């Protein structure tokens, strides 16, 4: 691994501090409830204390209505964890996005992940109008412009404090066309992405080839790349993802290993730990983003076994 010099930070983001300090970062993920129950956030969050540097809060993931990522993020912050607010381009136009960025920053939220968003056909509101006023590239540019130039997208000046977000983007090394994936990563970096979280890595070989191409373009020096991980709960869950989630690559061998396991959950944890160890060895990987879908309780075990505890206290 290349050591990155302790750097300067632009925001109050804990994730930025951890990455700037050259530490191998760990993010978790939490899906807000399909209800107005504030307690659900604190309840899920209890698994994360001491094991992560920040927690992604999804934004109507798979196009299913949930508590807003900003509101859930504010609740998470109240219980002492740093949220990474996910913002998609599916549900809001540039007016609503900028308004929400101001609001989120005013509530003390510091870390943002810019996404296109899953198409609404996947959810239960599939008769909705889709927005996609701007794409994820433009969203990154807009967030940086508000922060660094203190201007709205239109070019009009902000009239006071600017929203200061440490801003990230997603990348999918497993989508097609493969040879364009790193070019698109470069575009996201040029648009202003400071950290990258990838689609779940199961095919480590392909991920390593993608990282190699990223290093060839020097991108690993310009952006902090964090490998995504979804701990598999069962062979069925893996097969479901393989067949139903576009842009996922899951080797058959892994599915066989899960189906042959006596204790699939234990095997899933073990597989995740092994993948963490493998991606850590790849030059330019600066952290992991663990997405334990409906299985938050697995996270402490994974992080401890991977030797990633204790998390640095840089506040």
């Amino acid at each position, binding site marked *: 691994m290349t050591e990155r010099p302790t750097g300067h930070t632009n925001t109050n983001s804990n994730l930025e501090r951890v990455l700037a300090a050259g530490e191998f970062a760990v993010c978790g993920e939490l899906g807000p409830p399909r209800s107005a129950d504030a307690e659900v956030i604190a309840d899920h969050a209890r698994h994360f204390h001491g094991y992560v540097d920040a927690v992604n809060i999804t934004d109507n993931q798979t196009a299913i209505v949930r508590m807003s990522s900003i509101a859930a993020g504010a609740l998470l912050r109240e219980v002492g964890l740093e949220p990474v607010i996910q913002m998609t381009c599916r549900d809001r136009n540039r007016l609503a996005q900028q308004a929400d960025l101001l609001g989120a920053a005013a509530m003390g939220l510091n870390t943002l992940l810019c996404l296109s*968003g899953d*198409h609404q*056909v996947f959810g239960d509101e599939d008769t909705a109008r889709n927005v996609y006023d701007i*794409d994820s590239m433009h969203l990154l540019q807009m967030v940086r412009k508000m922060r660094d130039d203190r201007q709205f997208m239109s070019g009009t000046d902000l009239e006071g404090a600017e929203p200061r977000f440490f801003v990230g983007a997603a990348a999918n090394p497993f989508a097609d066309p493969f040879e*364009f994936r790193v070019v698109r990563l*470069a575009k996201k970096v040029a648009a202003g992405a400071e950290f990258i979280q990838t689609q779940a890595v199961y095919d480590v070989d392909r991920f390593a080839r993608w990282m190699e191409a990223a290093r060839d373009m020097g991108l690993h020096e310009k952006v902090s790349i964090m490998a995504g991980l979804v701990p598999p709960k069962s062979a069925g869950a893996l097969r479901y993802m393989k067949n139903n989630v*576009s842009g996922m690559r899951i080797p058959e061998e892994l599915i066989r290993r899960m189906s042959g396991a006596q204790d699939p959950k234990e095997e899933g944890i073990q597989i995740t730990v092994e993948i963490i160890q493998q991606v850590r060895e790849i030059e330019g990987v600066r952290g992991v983003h663990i997405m334990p879908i409906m299985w938050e309780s697995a996270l402490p075990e994974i992080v401890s076994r991977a030797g990633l505890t204790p998390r640095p206290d840089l506040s």
Partner: protein
Amino acid sequence: MIVAERKAISDILQMIEGAGRVLVVGCGTCVTVCLAGGEKEVAVCASLLRLQNQGEDRDLTVAEATIERQCEWEFARELDELVPDCDAIVSLACGAGVQTLAAQFEDTPVFPGLNTQFIGIPEEQGVWTEHCLACGECVLDKTGGICPIARCAKTILNGPCGGSQDGKCEINPETDCAWQLIFDRLKRLGRLHMLEEIEPPKNWSHSSDGGPRKVKREDMIL
């Protein structure tokens, strides 16, 4: 062309409820080519209306006419003599044709017999696909002649998104990923470098988002 599909006969019957004399009007242009509202489809629609009506206690007479283009006044006027004899018009044209007839014949209700779908092309016999959304500011010069506005499910200008796999769009395996097509085409043309630049946000005010649009050709205005 503008591609359309006929509405269900039961829906059309519901619209013309109470009308005794109905005129079904076809259009000889786009919807003739896409087999939705040409002379033949007018005959079929009229027959189905008569047939469905037989079972009911309703006195319905259905007349038929097809004009060259319903969206042009000079052709719409060809119906001047037929319309006064009818209580309702069922237009088998795109939305523009329906509205032209409605404006031309102010005292007669005009109902849409088609669902106007999109601007598209035939893919194979009996299959049409959308190719243009009339966004008002064409970007095909930058995308290898493949439209990301109409053909990418997320109207992404800097694709492909992370859902593109094996050439297909994340929304379903029958839909090609427009951005994979754009990539392939520009690669073939030796112009892949064009995709390295970030295409700026779209100015949607030229599209329908800017309100109803108008094209003015000063040189043509009398």
